[in-house]
């Protein structure tokens, strides 16, 4: 009997190592769990039924290209697209002998914060199926929370790993920009996209990050890690300087229950020996969201131009006129959110508006980076809520894109600065998980793991969704 709800990847690896379990049995246990619970949750778009390696299985967000396995990025325009090559992170997972469990659901082209923008139907939150799992890596976060995968890879542009991890009560790392290859990742906004792990524990996150991180000759924006990834051991925080940026903790729209849980975690950090003090990030928080909604759509408008029906994916037939074929294909293939962002982005880049919009946003981005750099001269880690709210109900924000965009207001600033961020569960509010965001300086993943691990131990958050606690084992 394998209790996939509770089994961590590290434990699973140990079982395989000691030959108490075969990789095939482990893989099958997760497929059983998927059969039992994914009908309701829809975390997966498709599963891989035969393990193709003898290690711990992993689930991949559906924007990670996998040779021979359909990859859609949650978009109908890519329905049926089977990549002829593997993404570098997929190659690295294979090299580490992880078997692929399947491809997880996501907001179309990673554009969204609830996974409701998937072209193939929404994913539901394992803590409450009437609520969203967050997004855009909602499928990956829900799969890990519901015991449908020991760990998973997601991608984070504006908060797409951290926010769903928070809403599903699991751990998610958005790595430093440039530490994980983007080769083979269906692009949304190239200067922001990063692949990262989602898992039940900080140590699992560190283990998976160790597998995927490092310079890749296929992605010239990647670099060698300045230090190797360390598995966190210590349970104190002595000597650590923790900053609590006022603007990230007191932003409008943060639910009281969220503030309460985060404050308890901050207090706990102090008890564990950290030197905690308040600090400020005024301009990053004030301008972050609007800056992001110029840069990300601008890059997206260009990245999504290749979906034209000429070479792969959907092609809507027309009377033979090429331009009409483009228009029809893109009209039929893209959902509302990609269309909205393509228009926004094309506008921000157009002649006469470039300087006022895209150009200005780049300047603001530099400002945000500097503001963070200055804080990291005084602090090792910054703490804040990951999401202003706990998981919201399906349909609650779909009619109001701006309300949806605000889901990422706390994760976006450090993403624009290219910094790493970890979200760990820090308690419940109204019976739903609250995420604590830890932000580190560039390449300081080890520091985040260390702090995250110490807090995780002290918080003793039971990551199994309460409603699943009894029927865990399958």
């Amino acid at each position, binding site marked *: 009997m394998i209790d996939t709800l509770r089994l961590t990847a590290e434990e699973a690896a140990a079982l395989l190592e000691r030959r108490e379990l075969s990789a095939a049995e482990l893989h099958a246990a997760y497929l059983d769990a998927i059969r039992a619970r994914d009908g309701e949750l829809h975390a997966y778009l498709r599963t891989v039924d035969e393990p193709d390696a003898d290690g711990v299985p992993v689930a991949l967000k559906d*924007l*990670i*290209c996998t040779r021979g396995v359909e*990859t859609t*990025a949650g978009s109908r325009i*890519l329905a049926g*697209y089977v*990549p*002829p*090559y593997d*993404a570098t992170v997929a190659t690295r997972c294979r090299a580490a002998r992880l078997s692929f469990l399947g491809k997880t659901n996501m907001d179309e082209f990673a554009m969204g914060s609830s996974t409701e923008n998937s072209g193939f139907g929404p994913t539901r939150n394992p803590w409450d199926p009437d609520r969203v799992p967050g997004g855009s890596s909602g499928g990956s976060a829900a799969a890990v929370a519901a015991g449908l995968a020991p760990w998973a890879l997601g991608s984070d542009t504006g908060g797409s790993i951290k926010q769903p991890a928070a809403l599903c009560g699991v751990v998610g790392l958005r790595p430093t920009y440039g530490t994980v290859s*983007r*080769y*083979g*990742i*269906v*692009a949304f*906004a*190239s*200067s922001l996209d990063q692949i990262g792990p989602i898992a039940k524990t900080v140590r699992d996150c560190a283990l998976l990050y160790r597998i995927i991180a490092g310079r890749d*000759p*296929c*992605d*010239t*924006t990647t670099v060698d890690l300045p230090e190797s990834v360390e598995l966190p051991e210590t349970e104190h925080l002595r000597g650590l300087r923790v900053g609590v940026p006022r603007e990230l903790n007191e932003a409008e729209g943060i639910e009281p229950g969220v503030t309460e849980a985060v404050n308890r975690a901050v207090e706990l950090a102090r008890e564990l020996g950290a030197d905690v003090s308040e600090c400020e990030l005024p301009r990053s928080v004030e301008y972050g969201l609007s800056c992001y909604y110029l840069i990300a759509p*601008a*890059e997206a*408008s*260009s990245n*999504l*131009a*290749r979906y*034209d029906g*000429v*070479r*792969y994916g959907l092609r809507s037939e027309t009377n*033979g006129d*090429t*331009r009409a074929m*483009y228009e029809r294909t893109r009209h039929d293939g893209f959902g509302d959110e990609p269309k909205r962002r393509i228009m926004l982005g*094309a506008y921000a*880049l*157009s*002649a006469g508006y*470039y300087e006022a919009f*895209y150009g200005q946003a780049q300047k603001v981005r530099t400002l945000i980076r500097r503001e963070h750099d200055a804080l990291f001269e005084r602090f090792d880690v910054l703490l804040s809520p990951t999401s202003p709210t706990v998981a919201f109900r399906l349909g609650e924000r779909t009619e109001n894109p701006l309300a949806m965009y605000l889901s990422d207001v706390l994760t976006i600033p450090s993403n624009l600065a290219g910094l790493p961020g970890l979200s760990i569960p820090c308690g419940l509010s109204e019976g739903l998980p609250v995420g604590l965001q830890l932000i580190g300086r560039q390449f300081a993943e080890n520091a985040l793991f260390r702090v995250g691990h110490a807090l995780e131990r002290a918080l003793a958050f039971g990551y199994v969704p309460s409603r699943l606690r009894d029927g865990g084992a399958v």
Partner: protein
Amino acid sequence: MSWQPVIGLEIHIHLKTRTKMFCRCELAYGLDANTRTCPICLGHPGTLPVPNARAIEWTIKLGLALGCEIADRAIFHRKNYFYPDLPKGYQISQYDEPLCRHGRLLVPGPEVDAEVGIVRAHLEEDAAKNVHVGGAAGRIHGAGRTLVDFNRGGTPLVEIVTRPDLHSADEARRFLQLLRQTVVELGISDAEMEKGSLRFDVNVSVRPAGSDELRTRTELKNMNSFAFAARGIQREVDRQIGIYEAGGEVEQETLHFDPDHELAPPLRSKEEAQDYRYFPEPDLVPLAPPRQLVERLRKEIPEPPGARIRRFESQYGLRFYDAEVLNGSVALAELYERVVSAGVDAKAASNVLMNEFARTGVEPGAVDAVELAKVIEARARIPRDRFNEALAGSGDPGFDAERYLGDGLVVETSELEPLVERVLAANEKEVAAYRAGKRGLLGFFVGQVMRETGGNADARVVNELLRTKLDA
């Protein structure tokens, strides 16, 4: 009123690197369609570009040869537009921070030299090739079907933009020739128009002579040879002058030439205001060519062909046209210089190389200059056939001039005299006729003597001998 043409050029040159600009597919011409492709150059989701370091070096080299400043920091931009031959929906190009700018190329002319400003030389990827099947030939509109061959897609392409510093069709042709020669001599491109590895567009306007205004210009596209371009430019200049002199205004438009029917009037199209939404390519980090690299490349730059033409004029006392022809390739120019330094008179060497030697089609690079110099020096002494034969063989491995000059070639009077006597004795009737005034028979006697020697006699010596004997 007299008018001055104002001409600017935009030239695209394929670099002959082993692999493409942003993926490692090998470059190849004339292969079956879509046999040199990969997920990257097909624009598959998730793929990323990795720049070809060799292509960057070669662009810098070209920039240096064109006297450009090499940027300390250059960036790639995305140029966004939709077309079936553009798999990503954007072309990776350069925009306001190109690798090379502010250069100039000296274009010597028969009367005046032109100094042509180079606005920029930048690196980009070429598009794939649309193949139109059925419908009106060669045009996307009205085509039955469009197929795309991605073999060419992603080929490294250098774009060179000149200032409008050219003032005649002939000057433009000369510039193109020199530029072509420059890239060929740098070894970075074949620059063959037939293969499409050199393409160019021309901007043309005219203005009253002496003024420095810039009037509305038209763009000439699709020209398939330098000579054709020169004719096209001349026609366009004449047309614009005609319009102004009739009191009209030139309209901004693009003229497409049909390469197969150069006499047909060009197709016109209104300039479509395209917004390419340029922005810095976020998938690539800025280029920062190290100074040491630039200085190393600078040392590898050969003498530019324009400067070489100038030097030939002054150093060897050649006329412009001769200097230009001799500099048609670096191999010919080098052969010329080596032949002269082997002692041959500069004028004579130039005459032989441009005429008799050129007609043989021998590859100048294959010729041993010292041996060739011996042949040229002997040109007055040996029979014409033998001279030409020697030139034709001058490119063969181990070519030995002596074989054509010394051995068996009878020049000694003492050796020829008995032969001459014998010929005259055997043809008494003809000797009588000659002496009676039929002077034309001299050729007959020469022929007879030459046959006796198997062609191995010096014709001038034979001539002289015969005349002495007959006229005695």
